[in-house]
Structures are given as structure tokens and as C-alpha cells.
């Protein structure tokens, strides 16, 4: 492989990363925009393919996990959420570090696991339908586990006759 080819790879990866970041900002405003989802998927797919071709197997594998989730979004199996966007912005930062050979391996692993969990979700899930599980970032910037459960609550029609306030049950659950 010639150095000019590698140079071209770095330039292209930089452009795609920039494009990805802009797409994610747009997607946050219009999460249902299929064209932006398709563009995001294509950019990820290209990064995955070219990094594999140029021997950056770590980036290729990592991007594959992100691509899987966006493939599911593309096929309406997962909906775009702020968490997915934040996670992807964080993943892009990791790809930049990987390109500079300055990867935080633990963080990469955590992010990869979060994407794998997202990809394994029940179709149409994340928050609305069923148990969802995503990684969330706390104020210190560390990744912590955030699990969402779907709870079905169907009270007896005469629940009020017994003096029960269903709202207090929900408050209890929340705590």
C-alpha cells in the first residue's frame, strides 16, 4: 500500500466523520427523516469498508456495531432516540482517537456493548415497546447502565371504590 493511498484514506475518513456529525445534529432535530438516516448509514458503511481495506480492523469492527443499529433504524426496527445520537457522537470521538492511534479501549468496548444491546432489542423498542437497555453518560463523562422497562398496569375498574390512588403506586414504582 502506498502512503498516498493511506493519506487519501485519512482525508476521506475525516470528511465522513464531519458529515456524520452534521447528520447526527440534523437527526436530533428531525429523527424521522429517512434520508438523513440513510446518509448516516452510508457514511458508517463506507468508514467500515475503507478502514477494513486499509488495515484498521479495530475501527472496522467498532463501526460495524454502530452500522448494525443504524441498519435497524433504517428498517424501522429501532427508533432514533437522543441516547442513540449521544452514543453515536461519543462513538465518533472514539473513531477519531482510533485514527490517531490514541484509543481508549475500555470506552470503545463499553460503547460497542451498548450498540450490541441496542441491536438486540425487540423490534420497535428502545422505550416504547418492551424492555430497552442503553448506555447513558453521567455528568462525569463515564458510561453507566440505564435500563428501561415496559410495565403494563391495568387496574380493576372499581379501584377507586377501595380508596386506592393509582398515582401513588406509580410514585412508589418511580422511587
Amino acid at each position, binding site marked *: *500500500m*502506498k502512503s498516498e*493511498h493511506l493519506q*487519501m*484514506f485519512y*482525508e*476521506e475518513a475525516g470528511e465522513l466523520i464531519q458529515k456524520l456529525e452534521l447528520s447526527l445534529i440534523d437527526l436530533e432535530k428531525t429523527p424521522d427523516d429517512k434520508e438523513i438516516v440513510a*446518509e448516516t*448509514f*452510508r457514511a458508517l*458503511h*463506507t468508514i*467500515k*469498508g*475503507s478502514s*477494513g*481495506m*486499509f*488495515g484498521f480492523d479495530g475501527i*472496522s469492527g467498532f463501526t*460495524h456495531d454502530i*452500522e*448494525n443499529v443504524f441498519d435497524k433504524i433504517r428498517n424501522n426496527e429501532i427508533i432514533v432516540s437522543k441516547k442513540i445520537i449521544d452514543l453515536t457522537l461519543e462513538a465518533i470521538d472514539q473513531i477519531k482517537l482510533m485514527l490517531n492511534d490514541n484509543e481508549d479501549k475500555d470506552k470503545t468496548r463499553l460503547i460497542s456493548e451498548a450498540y450490541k444491546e441496542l441491536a438486540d432489542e425487540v423490534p420497535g423498542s428502545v422505550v416504547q415497546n418492551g424492555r430497552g437497555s442503553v448506555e447513558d453518560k453521567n455528568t462525569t463523562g463515564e458510561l453507566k447502565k440505564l435500563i428501561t422497562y415496559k410495565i403494563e398496569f391495568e387496574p380493576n375498574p372499581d379501584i377507586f371504590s377501595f380508596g386506592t390512588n393509582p398515582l401513588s403506586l406509580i410514585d412508589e414504582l418511580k422511587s
Partner: protein
Amino acid sequence: MKKRIITVDDSASVRQMVSFTLREAGYEVTEAENGLQALQKLKEAPADMVITDLNMPVMDGIDLIKNIRTDSSNKFVPIIMLTTESQETRKLEGKRAGATGWIVKPFKAEQLVAVAQKVLK
């Protein structure tokens, strides 16, 4: 006379690498960024082989294969798809559309040349 290959990929770096490898192996190579550009290049001059990526904007690889197979002047040109391990369904779609074969990314320069030599012998 040199055999002419059209390489179609939206990734400029992959396109450049494929072109370089094939030119080094003695082929004439024309580059296209997407399926539509490849069809235009085919109209300008016939090719002996087309090597195409699948996921591309404007016109993807599957539509390119379908278009080539319905075009009487280029109907029989060999088409090799560049796929990834995760694209099994797309690979099958491409085969159904009329692709001659495929190479799984990432591949080595020697693999690419070996496929070109086999198809164009």
C-alpha cells in the same frame, strides 16, 4: 489491447486502491462514484468487467447490475460485487440481479488481481 475494467465505489480511497492494483496488473481502469456514473461510463465505451460496491448513493450496486443486465449492448459483461461479511442478503440480491461473482471486503490486492485474471482470461 488492454482489457478495460470499471470500478464503482463511493469511497474514493477504496476506488483509488482498486484502480492502482488493477493498473499495476496491466488493466485499463475507469472509476465511477456510483451506479449512474458507471452506466454513463459504459455508454461512453464498453468494458470487459465491472467491479462494484453495493451501498452507494444516487444508484446502488444492485440497481446498477439490473440496469446493465437489461442493456442489450452490455448485457453479458462480467460484474463482480464488493461485499462485506454482513451483507449476505444483499449478496443474494446481487446474484439474483445477475452478478457474476463477489469479493468480500477487506480483500488483498492479490485476491483482486486473481479474480480479474480468472474472469478475463
